[in-house]
């Protein structure tokens, strides 16, 4: 292979792939090179100069973090001169660094502390006149510039991985500090990734500040439950206080070197449920189930719970309602009937590595922030073309998106058909399929969806030289009336082009539930027991339930993430009350423990018969995700036939889009203490004029028999005639199409 470069590090023969630096090769080979500013998921900052190495024949030192090796070069990572140089760098870092390790939140896990001890900095030869530096409070984030070592990790992740581009380094020699970009205070999505990567105590969570020390907290490896990305995280728990035996979660941490978390994952951890064993409620629940005709449940459950519900269904002969997962399953069945494979083909890693992404049907920055981060990474690192098709232009995506395709509400079928037609222009289609696309009424579809030929041609042009392409399909498509046909069209793209497809499930375990349960159409009958959902008798981990059960941070079990990966989660906190397994035991379908069901998950859907305790839950030192296992691919008969694209629906009048604001996902995030709750109806000036409302008005929004009163907020960053209506604080019903024609009336304050 000509792409491999052979060289030696400390006399050891090593091989680098194209694009690898000396540092990445050394780390892979287990050779230690100290760094202060290097972080694997961004491009090297090269600000610390700790990673210096010597190369034979090269004068001076070489920065290993951003230097690719050349054939046959001999690298030495540890010499007296290097040690001297690195010790001096550490001394410089220590100049005027406040000696407040005793109170600093980072003490015990501080890079500066560790490296100062590692290099034995016992005396200081450098001085500088100290500055007065003001501690800044930026909402959820606290910044202490006097502790900051200006490694720039935070700036790099914010810009390259997250895409907020909200912080910047204000250069001023010794006065340099991190400042909010183009703003007085920090205006961002508060993902808190800057806190995670900060090697010292400069950036910390305002809520966590000074409440506990690193060494007191016990870490529980778990999986985030707020969206379908299923990010790995660690809940850090400690006793609640001096007078309490109970534990509580103090903060959430992640393996920031390789993975990212959004703000809801990082700050929204206190949604646990508290209850004791209430026998009367338990017997009522059993009684209610005996008389019930159906169980309605949300996808905020583990695979094991889903399997228990399925067993209850089989035992009691009742129906199972979960519109969100049912629509998803339906979509996937149609998809599989054309693609021949049960699961979608792309992963988040594929998005990160891609150089072209088309995303349709999702306000992704709030639906699934990690997909957004993956797209940002692709855009910044690979210069990927990001084509964002949606009726609402998301201001959060401005920095990332290269082409915005604005289509009319409800015309998703037409848009995907047009996309398929253009993307499969040169594909090796069968005559029948070729004829199908030739018969499409382009003019009508373009006119109705408002996506013109020139826009599509421009897209094709920008895609022309790309190799790794991903099509991301969001929740609006699954919830669409014509979802089945759209699924087949998407599968056509997957089958005949080099696009891989990522389908974004709505909730944390929508995918798992759709694979585990056979679901029925929700016909809203009475005698329904709700499981984390509405019903005549409600068993739920949310407040005001008839029988309280454990929340997802108090449960063991598995989820299926967007990557088709079955990942385990662990109980961070205890729960005294009953669980679904206890109810199932009453009906003879329970197990000794809920996790005994992990190995019984349906193999026909791709699950493996693996014990829960054999599932790993961490990332490897090289950053590979080795949590749980990936679902087996299941071959499906390809009998799907494309149906003609009929008339596209028209949405006229006032349209709202039921989408949550940043940091909010569902009723659980609504319970948390730190997350901001923006309950306003947000719209552009254009919307305000059309709906005859103005900023600060109290309005009643009514659609399809539902109504909610909200305050209208006019936002300058928004465009278009669609207002954004949050759903985290009321039961909107999952799985419904999120654009709604609605009536907006001003109401008086009384």
């Amino acid at each position: 292979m000509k792409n491999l470069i052979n060289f030696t590090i400390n006399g050891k023969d090593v091989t680098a792939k194209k694009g690898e630096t000396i540092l990445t090769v050394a780390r892979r080979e287990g050779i230690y090179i100290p760094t202060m500013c290097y972080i694997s998921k961004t491009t090297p900052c090269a600000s610390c100069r700790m990673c210096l190495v010597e190369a034979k024949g090269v004068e001076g030192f070489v920065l290993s973090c951003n230097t690719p090796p050349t054939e046959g070069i001999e690298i030495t990572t540890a010499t007296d001169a290097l040690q001297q140089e690195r010790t001096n760098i550490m001394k410089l870092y220590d100049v005027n660094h406040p000696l407040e390790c005793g109170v600093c939140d980072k003490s015990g896990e501080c890079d500066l502390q560790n490296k100062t001890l590692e290099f034995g900095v016992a005396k200081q030869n450098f001085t500088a006149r100290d500055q007065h530096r003001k501690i800044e409070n930026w909402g959820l984030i606290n910044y202490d510039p006097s502790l900051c070592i200006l490694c720039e990790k935070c700036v790099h992740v914010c810009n390259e991985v997250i895409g907020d581009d909200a912080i910047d380094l204000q250069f001023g020699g010794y006065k340099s500090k991190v400042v909010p970009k183009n703003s007085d205070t920090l205006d961002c999505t508060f993902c808190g990734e800057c806190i995670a990567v900060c090697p010292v105590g400069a950036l910390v969570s305002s809520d966590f500040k000074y409440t506990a020390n690193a060494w007191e907290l016990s870490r529980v490896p778990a999986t985030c439950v707020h969206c379908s990305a299923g990010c790995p995280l660690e809940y850090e728990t400690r006793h609640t206080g001096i007078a309490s035996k109970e534990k509580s979660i103090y903060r959430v941490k992640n393996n920031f070197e390789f993975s990212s978390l959004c703000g809801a994952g990082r700050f929204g951890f206190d949604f646990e449920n508290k209850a004791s064993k209430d026998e009367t409620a338990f017997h009522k629940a059993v009684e209610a189930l005996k008389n019930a005709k159906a169980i309605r449940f949300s996808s905020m459950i583990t695979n094991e719970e889903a399997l228990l519900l399925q067993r209850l269904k089989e035992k009691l002969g009742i129906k199972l309602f979960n519109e969100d997962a049912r629509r998803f399953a339906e979509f996937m069945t149609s998809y599989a009937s054309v693609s021949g494979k049960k699961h979608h083909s792309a992963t988040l890693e594929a998005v990160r590595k891609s150089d072209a992404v088309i995303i349709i049907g999702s306000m992704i920055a709030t639906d699934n922030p990690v997909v957004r981060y993956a797209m940002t990474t692709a855009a910044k690192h690979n210069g990927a073309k990001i084509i964002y098709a949606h009726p609402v232009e998301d201001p959060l995506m401005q920095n990332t998106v290269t082409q915005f395709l604005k289509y009319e509400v409800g015309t998703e079928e037409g848009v995907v058909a047009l996309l398929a037609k253009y993307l499969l222009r040169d594909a090796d289609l069968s005559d029948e399929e070729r004829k199908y696309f030739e018969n499409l009424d382009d003019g009508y579809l373009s006119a109705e969806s408002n996506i013109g030929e020139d826009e599509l041609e421009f897209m094709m042009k920008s895609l022309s030289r790309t190799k790794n392409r991903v099509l991301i399909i969001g929740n609006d498509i699954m919830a669409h009336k014509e979802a089945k046909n759209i699924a087949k069209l998407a599968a056509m793209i997957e089958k005949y082009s080099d696009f891989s497809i990522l389908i974004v499930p709505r909730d944390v375990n929508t995918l798992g539930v759709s694979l585990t349960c056979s679901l029925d159409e929700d016909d809203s009958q009475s005698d329904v027991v709700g499981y984390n959902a509405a019903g005549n008798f409600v068993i739920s981990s949310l407040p005001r339930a008839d029988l309280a059960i454990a929340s997802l941070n108090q449960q063991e079990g598995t989820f299926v993430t967007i990557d088709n990966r079955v990942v385990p989660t662990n109980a961070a906190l205890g729960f005294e009350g009953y669980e679904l397994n206890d109810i199932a035991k009453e009906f003879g379908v329970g197990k000794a423990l809920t996790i005994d069901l992990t190995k019984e998950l349906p193999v026909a859907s791709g699950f493996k018969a693996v014990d829960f305790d054999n599932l790993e839950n961490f990332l490897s030192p090289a950053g590979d995700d080795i949590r749980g296992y990936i679902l087996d691919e299941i071959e499906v008969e390809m009998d799907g036939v494309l149906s003609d694209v009929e008339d596209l629906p028209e949405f006229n009048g006032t349209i709202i889009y039921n989408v949550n604001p940043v940091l909010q996902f569902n009723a659980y995030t609504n319970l948390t203490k730190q997350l901001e709750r923006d309950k306003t109806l947000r719209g552009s000036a254009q919307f305000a004029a059309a709906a005859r409302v103005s900023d600060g008005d109290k309005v009643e929004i009514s659609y399809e028999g539902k109504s909610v009163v909200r305050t209208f907020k006019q936002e300058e960053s928004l465009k278009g005639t669609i207002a954004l209506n949050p759903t985290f604080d009321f039961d909107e019903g999952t799985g419904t199409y999120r654009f709604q024609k609605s009536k907006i009336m001003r109401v008086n304050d009384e």
Partner: protein
Amino acid sequence: MSIEQFKNRNVSDDYFLVDIEDYPTDGWGQFKRVVKRTFKGELFVGLWVVLREMIKFDIHTVQYPKEKMPIGPRYRAVHEMKRLWESGTERCIGCGLCEKICISNCIRMETKIDENSRKEVSEYSINLGRCIFCGYCAEVCPELAITHGARYENASEQRAHFVMYEDMLTPIDMLKAGQQQEFEGFGAITPHEDERVKKTPLAY
């Protein structure tokens, strides 16, 4: 050197054998010894000493618990929390090292950020029922804030027996009156410590 040398007990020439009468071997001899010891005048010597001291009223009894013996400065009894001499503020910075080092796991604390953005100890307790008074907490304390005091009475109605932060803290009036006692035990600063402190080089 041989073992004989060690067996020789005559380390000095001043040693002599005490002149002790042989023990009586028969019953009559034993009877005579009892009578001799019983009616010795020394009994009255003892009685006289008691009478003399009673008349002199030179009494050395400590009237515990009203009176207590002074206790050594290094004695490790119930903990105290010290204040800074200059400002009167609490020395404890809430670093949590005492909680960490405590081998009987009897220290617990809660900290928070105060209105001046400083770390503040909001709750602090030591379970004296578990405490083994090893002194590690005082030794590890970087601020000489937690120390051992002289209060050694720990009787309690139950095994768990807590002492709270406010109880341990030197009252502010005692501090102002200069009555705060510095602990001299393990972990305390040694005399002439300030002579050994090196200054940070400040070239400017």
